[in-house]
């Protein structure tokens, strides 16, 4: 058991670090949620892609390097340590792409992924609706059969990046049946098609980070159905772990923020304020725990190329806790007797496992930024200036416990699927 980096990983880390030192913007780009900023972020994606660094974990044929999960974690660490720009294509890169690898056709992959890798096509998610948030299966937007395809109608909302993005993905109802999870279909559609209206929504920070999408008989060809019609719920859920887990919020992001928090503490902290010192230490410990758990996952057999070859199974060490508890349906004493038996991964475990990570990283992100703002004292209010990144980061972090499935939904999933609590 060791945490030492081998030569290959160290060489990759050095390459990424050098490249970023030479290419990463010295000052932050304008906000990605402005027209100018969006364009500059898109251009940055192209620059990353030219160095084959935009999607290192993807197979080479789509613009990646077939990198292992470990290499990807290393890339992310370096990227965030270098304060690399927000990934404008993240909804496509981290949510849609894993779904395409798992359920897309070869034609869809080769048509969609290369353009996603360069930022030529930026994707927006279209899950929520005005009346549908946590209860996603209650979707009302629908798709009707048309010649050679479908006509999408309805309204989607809280669609990140949709104001300037090119294409969207989401679930639409194609049939009504006894079970509402049936009859949903996963569609890919152009945000520029006739019948699409996008209305920006100003976020808490005043910027148009998300939008409403109105669809009025928008034609989508059959080639842009992901998976089989009616199978959308299963497809969306099978890769939901990607949306809330490691790929969406990599450990590198929090390790970098924790390192900066410790620097801020050394610069601005009152050594006598042990309560605040405790919070700084806890935030760093949390970021380290998130990083280590990812390394544990990356050490699993089969964690090699993680895109295109499925999600690695959770570590046996972690499955143990959950199985132990799930086995404990007898009396207090006998639950212990069966404590560590049955370590095998049960169905649905990866998705439920990612729920643990989602609650953890979103709470950690808030704790990191809240602690930094506390350290800044009166300057914490400033929305401009050298330390304003903490405020922006805090406002961003506030959304974490809400999006990608609220933390309440995640806790329910954890209790039911990992701890065996009755519905």
């Amino acid at each position, binding site marked *: *058991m060791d945490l030492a980096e081998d030569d290959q990983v160290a060489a990759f880390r050095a390459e990424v670090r050098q490249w970023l030192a030479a290419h990463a913007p010295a000052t932050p780009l304008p906000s990605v949620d402005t027209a100018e900023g969006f364009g500059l972020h898109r251009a940055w994606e192209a620059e990353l892609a030219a160095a084959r660094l935009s999607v290192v974990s993807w197979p080479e044929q789509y613009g990646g390097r077939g990198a292992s999960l470990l290499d990807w974690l290393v890339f992310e660490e370096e990227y965030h340590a270098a304060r690399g720009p927000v990934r404008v294509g993240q909804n496509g890169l981290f949510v849609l792409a894993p779904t395409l690898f798992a359920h897309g056709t070869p034609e869809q992959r080769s048509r969609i992924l290369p353009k996603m890798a360069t930022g030529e096509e930026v994707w927006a998610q279209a899950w929520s609706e005005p009346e549908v948030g946590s209860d996603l299966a209650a979707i009302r937007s629908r798709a009707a059969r048309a010649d050679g395809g479908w006509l999408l109608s309805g309204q989607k909302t809280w669609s990140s990046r949709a104001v300037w993005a090119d294409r969207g993905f989401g679930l639409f109802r194609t049939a009504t049946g006894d079970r509402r999870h049936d009859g949903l279909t996963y569609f890919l559609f152009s945000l520029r098609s006739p019948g699409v209206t996008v209305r920006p929504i100003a976020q808490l920070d005043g910027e148009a980070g998300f939008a409403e999408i109105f669809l009025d008989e928008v034609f989508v060809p059959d080639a842009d159905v992901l998976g089989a019609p009616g199978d959308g719920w299963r497809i969306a859920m099978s890769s939901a772990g990607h949306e809330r887990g490691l790929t969406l919020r990599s450990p590198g992001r929090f390790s970098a923020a924790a390192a900066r928090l410790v620097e801020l503490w050394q610069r601005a902290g009152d050594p006598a304020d042990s309560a605040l010192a405790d919070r700084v230490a806890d935030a760093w410990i949390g970021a380290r725990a998130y990083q280590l758990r990812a390394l544990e996952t990356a*050490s699993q057999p089969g964690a090699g190329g993680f895109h295109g070859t499925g999600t690695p199974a959770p570590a046996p060490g972690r499955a143990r806790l959950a199985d132990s508890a799930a086995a404990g349906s007898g009396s*207090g004493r006998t639950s212990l007797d069966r404590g560590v038996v049955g370590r095998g991964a049960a169905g649905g475990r990866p998705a439920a496992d990612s729920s643990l990570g989602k609650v953890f990283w979103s709470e950690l992100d808030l704790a990191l930024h809240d602690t930094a703002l506390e350290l800044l004292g009166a300057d914490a209010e400033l929305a401009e200036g050298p330390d304003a990144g903490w405020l922006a980061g805090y406002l961003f972090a506030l959304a974490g416990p809400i999006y990608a499935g609220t933390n309440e939904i995640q806790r329910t999933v954890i209790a039911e699927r990992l701890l065996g609590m009755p519905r």
Partner: protein
Amino acid sequence: MSFVLAAEQLQFAEALHDQLAAADVPAVARQWAAGDRKRGQALWYSLAEAGVAALAVPQRWDGLGAHPADLVIACEELGHHAMPGPIAESLAAVPTLLAVLAGTDEPAADERIAGWLRQLAAGDLIATIAWPPLLPYAADAQLAGLVLVAGPDWVKLAEPGPGLRSVQAGRSLSIVTGKELLAHGAAAAIQQAFEFGVLAGAAQLLGAGRALLDCATAHAVQRTQFGSPIGSFQAVKHQLANVLIALEFGRPLLLAAAVALADDPAGAARDVSAAKVACTDAARLAARVALQVHGAIGYTAEHDLSLWLTLVRAVGPAWGSQRWHRARVLAALAGGS
């Protein structure tokens, strides 16, 4: 890099779990608390036969010289079953200290030390230690065959004062008086022993946290109110989920601390303290939630839950307070590690 337990290590954990489950440790712990330590000492001896007491003893003194991760596995399982006794002291801190003091010279500098190491490995000797002010009391000194006290750079044989009762029934805490000087100029050995004691305590706490979650989930499925198992209520589910999250993210810190101790004991302070902070917090959360889920029945001394609730309260503050360990993490980070 391979940050994952090997198959043999998982088997070791499972075998230990089976052995402890068969031994009915809660009953043993209750007899132990009532002053009858026969079954407890027999269990200690049979655990030693399984190798538990020899993990931190080098091979040259008939030990296993195991990786610190193996010690984590063992101590976690002992905490999982609420095994009584001076576990962090006798299985981790004292053998680590004596092993460094015994050195690598042939013959050993002090034949007595070599003898104690052999006895510890065989389960024939139970040892305890105090290191004031950080570790002011020697735990379970009354039943220990070897009681030590350490200072900044010296180690002495010690005589225990009267045993003060711990919150954990059957556990006692003694102020000790140093007698014969055993070693001086031993600051590095003492530091290393301390790190291993902290690691073992943290592992015990994580194991206890797991047991508390096991008991709480079992009860939540079984106990019916308002016509439904209480585990179907979101207020209960979400609290249990928080416990699982805390435990799941505590274990990697514990294993990283073990790796750090294997690689460089002198540079492991940051990782050892991080593990202790996270495992103590996780165990305390598990204790609070497990009690809340059990309701009044969990508040009774009669219910076995009390064994783990008091274990967490006893081992949590030993081996350095949360504030002390958090400060040490920050100090290590400021030092650039």
